[in-house]
C-alpha cells in the first residue's frame, strides 16, 4: 500500500500528504442477559491534504480506484482557497519511515462472534436485587493505517482497540438512577479479563444512588476523584491549550504562555506515548512522533498542544498532537491521554479537616475556551464533615471559571489513576482519548 500511496504523491502543490485506512470492527450490545444487537463490518478510505500558497485543499474517497483523481481534487481545492489564504505553513519536517504494530494478548480477529458474546454474557452476570436494568456494550476494532507525504514520510500502523461500557439502573420514588463505568485501550479481547469487579462496582453505585440526596448549593471545598480530575484536565485546560483554538483567537490562554494559571499544585500533561491507553498513538496525523507535553507545570503554562500547522501559526514546534477521526477528516489539534500530575498528599491528608463535598466520576463536562467558564457534573459523591464521608449525594454540578478554580487547588494526592476512557468531540470529529490524575482538593467551588 505504501508504494501505491507514494507514487500518488504529486508535486503540483507545495505539500501533499495521503492517509489510507482499512478497518474492521465488531460491536455488541447486551440488554439484561439478552443480545440486542451484534454488528460487524469493514470500511476503507483515502484522504489527501494539499497545501498551495498558504491554503489547504482536502479530498476524500472511500474508493481506492479513485485515489489518483482524489489527489488531483485536493490540489484543485487548495488553489480555490488560495484566493485569500490564511498563510498556512508547516513547522519542522515530517520524514519518518516506520512501521508500528500494536501487539495484544488476544487479537479480536482470533475470536468468533460467538466467543465474544459468551464472554460478555458471562461478565454481565446475574442482576442483583434493586437493580432494575443493566446494559453492556463491547466493541473491538483492528486495521491498517498508512501515511505518506511529499517530505518523504512513509508510515504504517496496525492498531487494535477494544472498548467496554457497563450501565446499571435503580429506581427511587419512580425516578430512574443510572451508574456507569467504562474500560478501553489499545488492547484485544483481554480487555474483558477480570472486569467482574468493574461490573460489581457499577451495580453498587446504582444502589448507592438510591440513598443519595441532592447536594447543598453554594461555594464549598471539594475533593474530586481521579476520573473527575481527568475531566478537569481535559475539558478545562486541555481544550483551551489546543494550538488551533489559540491561533484562532478562541482561547482564554492565548498569549499567556509562561504565565501563572493555577496554584503550585497544578501540573497537567498530555501523553500519547503511555502504553495501551485509549488515546495513545505512535505518530500523529502529520507523521510526527508522539511525545509527552507538559501543558502546566507547578501552576505555570509551559506548552500548548500543537500540530505542525498550528505550531507554524504560533511560531513554535509541533507537539505531535495532530489527529483526525478517520482518513475522511481534516487533521486538527487534539488531545491524547490528558491528566493532572500526582502531588504529595496521602488520602488521609487530602481529607483532613474537610467540610464539603467528595465528588466522584463524571456525567460529562463542558468549558467555553474563550471565557474559561465551565460546568462539570459528577456521577455521585459524599457530603464530608470533618474529613469523614457522611451522606451520599447525586446530581452534583460544579460550575466556575478555570483560572479561579485552578488557583484554588490546595493539594493533590500521591496516588494517580490514568486511562479513564472517553470519546472527545471537536469540530464534528470524535476521537478516543483518556484522562485521569490523583485525587485533588479545591476550595471555593460553586456547587449548582
Amino acid at each position: 500500500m505504501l508504494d501505491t500511496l507514494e507514487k500518488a504523491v504529486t508535486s503540483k502543490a507545495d505539500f501533499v500528504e495521503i492517509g489510507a485506512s482499512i478497518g474492521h470492527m465488531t460491536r455488541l450490545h447486551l440488554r439484561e442477559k439478552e443480545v440486542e444487537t451484534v454488528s460487524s463490518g469493514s470500511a476503507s478510505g483515502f484522504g489527501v491534504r494539499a497545501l498551495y500558497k498558504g491554503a489547504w485543499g482536502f479530498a476524500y474517497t472511500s474508493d481506492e480506484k479513485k485515489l489518483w483523481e482524489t489527489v488531483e481534487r485536493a490540489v484543485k481545492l487548495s488553489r480555490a482557497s488560495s484566493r485569500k489564504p490564511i498563510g498556512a505553513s508547516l513547522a519542522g519536517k515530517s520524514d519518518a519511515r516506520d512501521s508500528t504494530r500494536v501487539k495484544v494478548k488476544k487479537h479480536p480477529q482470533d475470536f468468533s462472534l460467538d466467543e465474544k458474546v459468551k464472554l460478555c454474557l458471562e461478565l454481565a452476570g446475574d442482576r442483583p436485587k434493586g437493580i432494575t436494568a443493566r446494559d453492556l456494550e463491547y466493541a473491538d476494532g483492528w486495521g491498517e493505517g498508512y501515511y505518506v507525504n511529499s517530505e518523504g514520510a512513509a508510515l504504517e500502523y496496525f492498531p487494535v482497540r477494544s472498548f467496554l461500557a457497563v450501565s446499571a439502573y435503580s429506581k427511587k420514588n419512580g425516578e430512574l438512577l443510572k451508574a456507569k463505568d467504562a474500560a478501553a485501550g489499545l488492547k484485544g479481547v483481554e480487555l474483558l479479563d477480570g472486569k467482574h469487579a468493574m461490573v460489581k462496582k457499577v451495580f453498587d453505585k446504582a444502589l448507592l444512588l438510591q440513598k443519595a440526596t441532592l447536594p447543598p448549593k453554594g461555594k464549598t471545598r471539594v475533593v474530586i476523584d481521579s476520573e473527575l480530575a481527568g475531566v478537569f484536565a481535559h475539558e478545562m485546560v486541555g481544550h483551551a491549550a489546543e494550538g488551533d483554538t489559540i491561533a484562532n483567537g478562541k482561547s482564554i490562554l492565548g498569549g499567556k504562555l509562561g504565565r501563572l494559571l493555577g496554584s503550585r499544585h497544578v501540573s497537567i500533561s498530555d501523553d500519547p506515548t503511555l502504553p495501551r491507553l485509549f488515546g495513545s498513538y505512535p505518530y500523529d496525523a502529520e507523521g510526527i512522533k508522539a511525545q509527552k507535553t507538559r501543558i502546566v507545570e507547578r501552576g505555570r503554562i509551559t506548552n500548548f498542544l500543537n500540530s505542525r500547522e498550528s505550531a507554524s501559526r504560533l511560531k513554535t514546534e509541533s507537539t505531535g498532537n495532530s489527529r483526525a477521526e478517520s482518513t475522511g477528516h481534516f487533521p486538527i489539534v487534539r488531545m491524547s491521554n490528558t491528566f493532572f500530575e500526582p502531588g504529595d498528599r496521602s488520602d488521609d491528608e487530602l481529607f483532613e479537616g474537610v467540610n464539603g463535598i467528595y465528588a466522584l466520576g463524571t456525567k460529562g463536562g463542558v468549558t467555553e475556551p474563550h471565557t474559561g467558564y465551565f460546568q462539570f457534573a459528577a456521577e455521585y459523591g459524599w457530603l464530608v464533615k470533618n474529613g469523614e464521608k457522611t451522606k451520599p449525594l447525586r446530581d452534583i454540578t460544579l460550575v466556575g471559571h478555570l483560572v479561579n478554580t485552578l488557583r484554588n487547588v490546595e493539594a493533590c494526592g500521591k496516588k494517580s489513576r490514568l486511562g479513564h476512557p472517553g470519546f472527545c468531540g471537536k469540530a464534528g470529529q470524535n476521537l478516543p482519548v483518556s484522562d485521569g490524575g490523583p485525587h485533588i482538593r479545591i476550595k471555593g467551588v460553586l456547587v449548582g
Partner: protein
Amino acid sequence: MIDPILAKAAKKCDQAELYYAESHSLLSRSSLDKLEACKSAEDRGFGLRVVCGGRIGHSFFSREEDADRAISGAVKSAKLSHTEGYSLPGKASYHKRKCFDPKLKALDEEKLVDMVLASMDATAESADPIQAEVEARYGTVEIASTEGVYAKDTESLFSLYCVGKKKESMGDESFSSRKLTDCAVRVGRVAGELAEQGVGASPVDYEGTVTLHQDVIGSFFGESVVRNLNGELARRGKAKWADRLGKKVTGDFTLTDDPTIDWGIGTMPFDDEGVPTTKKDMIKNGVLKQFYYDTRTANLAGAKATGNGFRGGPVSPPTISMTNVVISPESRGSGGGMFVRDLMGYHNMNPVTGDFSLDITHAILNEKPVRGCVLTGNVFEMLEKGEWNGPTETRAWLTSPQLSFEAKVVGK
C-alpha cells in the same frame, strides 16, 4: 449494483435487506479573516440486515469484494441475537416532497468561497470574523429487501456557520436547509451582532420571567423531550412519559413530527428501513398521543413502526430518531424578562426528571448583556406552565415560537 448482493444474502437467511448510501460534500472554511481550506468528500457504503428465524443481524462494508464476509457476519449476528419474532418491513409507496436541490449539486468550490468571503465581510461590520464555514452536501440512499421494499431518494443539505468576536464576547449563528439559500450575509452579520451584543456581559441574580430563543428550546427538546417520546426507552421504563399515553403531559400545545415539510432538514419520503414517513402529532394539546418507533422496537413493544428508524450511516443499524418537529401552541403570551440566547452544559441535565442547572453564556436583561450565571429549573414544569410567544421560526429541525417561564438565575 445492490441486487446481486441482496440475492446472494437471501440464500443464507429468511429475509434480507441491503441499504446503500453514497454522499458527496463540498466545504469551504475561513479562519479569522482569511480562507483556511476547501474540502470535498465522496463516501459510499453498504449496510446489510438479515433475519434468521425471527432474529435480526447486521453488518456493513464499503467494498463490494467484502460482501461475502459481510453476509456471513450478518447471519452469525442474527443467530446470536435474542430479539425474536422480527420481520423486515414490506413493500410500500412513498410521498414526494422537496428535499433535493440540484443547485447544491452544481455548486463548485469557487462559489462556496464567495459565500465564505461574503459572510466574513458581514461579520466584520460589527466584530472580528473568527470562522465562517459553508457546506453543500447531496447523497442518494437506496434500500431493497426480499420483502419487496425498493426505495431510492436523493437528498441535499446546505449549511452555513459563522463566528464573530468582539473583545471577550463571541457570537455565532448558523443556518441549514435542504435548499440553496442566499443567506451568507445575513448569517455572518448576525454572528457579528451577537458578539457585539455580548460585550461587557456580567453575571446577575434574577428571579422572574425568562424567555428562551428557539435554539435553546431545540437543545432542551433534543436532550430531554424527544428522548421521552422514544418508544424503546418508554418500553424499558427509561422515559418519563412511559405510562402516560393518552394523558396530559405538557401545557396546551401540539408537538408534530413532520417529515413532509418542503425543504425541511428532516424531510424524507421514507426512513432508513424503507418505512414511509408520515406527519403525526406526538403530543396533541398537551396529551401524549404516541411514541416514536423503528420496526425492531415496534416489534418488541407490539406497536406499529412510525417511520422513524434512521441510521448514522451504513455502519449503524437503524435506531429511533425524530424528523422535523413543529410546535403549535393553543395560545400565546407576551414573553419578556430575561431573553436567553445560549446556554452551556445541556448534557449535564437529567433527561428523565428534567431537572437542569445550566450556565448562561448569552442572555439579555433590561438591554444589558448577561453571562456567567446559572439558570435552574425543570424542563417538564417549563413545558407545563410556560407561555409560548414571539415569532415562529424554523431553526434546523425545530419550528417553534419562543417560550417564557418563571425561573431563577443565580450569579457567581
